């Protein structure tokens, strides 16, 4: 880590911290309670940004995977893999907070709604991504194979979403936004999305940095073996 990186990371951490505090303040104090579903609706302000980040993460993986296969620079592989790691963690959170939200509102834990089901399918695809990486016979092969999965897995997203939407149509948004999205609600949502996006960027920087360190260790081990 050189000075420039340290400065950038410092600014990002500061920004992320400030945004998170602002988000917490807005969610719990600033924004008025929604009339129809009550206090539980406040899960919305974190559930939606977490879901957004998980899609963003897999999109970034898709782009980095293409760039890796094209340019063959390890940094793209490191970003793709780090992004999947963060994406899987956030998808897990979507799959946990979704039912916690659904239970008090609809009285059921799980609903086969398009968004939740797509998240579940994505979770399974990217778990497979991480498995292939760890089970590849050689790191270079693992990088190539996971890039392929990062590409063919992501183009499945719209098809899965469309299919599930046709299969079981149950739209939670109509229930949440019966009164429409008021300005304070929208402001709160946007701040939360910004906060989680910065958190995502920070986590990817941190995690891809570890991949670079692992590569460095491999390099040093080779030198040592000489």
């Amino acid at each position, binding site marked *: 880590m050189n000075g420039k990186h340290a400065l950038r990371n410092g600014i990002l951490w500061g920004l992320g911290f400030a945004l998170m505090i602002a988000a917490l303040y807005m969610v719990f104090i600033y924004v008025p309670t929604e009339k129809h579903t*009550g*206090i*539980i609706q*406040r*899960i919305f302000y*974190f*559930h939606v940004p*977490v879901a957004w980040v998980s899609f963003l993460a897999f999109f970034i993986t898709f782009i980095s995977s293409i760039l890796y296969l094209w340019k063959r620079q390890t940094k793209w592989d490191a970003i793709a893999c780090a992004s999947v790691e*963060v994406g899987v*963690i956030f998808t*897990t*959170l979507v799959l*946990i*907070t979704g039912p*916690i*939200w659904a*239970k*008090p509102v609809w009285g059921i834990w799980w609903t086969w709604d398009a968004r939740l089901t797509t998240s579940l399918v994505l979770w399974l695809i990217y778990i497979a991504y991480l498995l292939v990486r760890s089970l590849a016979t050689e790191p270079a092969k693992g990088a190539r194979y996971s890039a392929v999965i990062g590409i063919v897995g992501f183009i499945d997203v719209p098809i899965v979403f469309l299919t599930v939407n046709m299969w079981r149509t149950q739209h939670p948004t109509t229930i949440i936004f019966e009164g429409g999205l008021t300005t304070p609600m929208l402001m709160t949502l946007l701040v939360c999305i910004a906060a989680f996006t910065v*958190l995502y960027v920070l*986590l990817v920087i*941190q*995690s891809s*940095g*570890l991949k670079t*360190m*692992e590569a*460095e*260790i491999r390099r*040093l*081990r080779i*030198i*040592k073996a000489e």
Partner: protein
Amino acid sequence: MENLGYLLAAYTVIWAVVFGYILFLQRKQRRLQRQIDALKGSIEK
């Protein structure tokens, strides 16, 4: 207010997992840094 428990549960899970992950990354970073230092040290000798 009866759903406060669910709300708290959801937030607790999110923060627990995120902090857990950050902690995991930092411990791993420290471990890898130690390995790098050890390797560099043994190469210089």
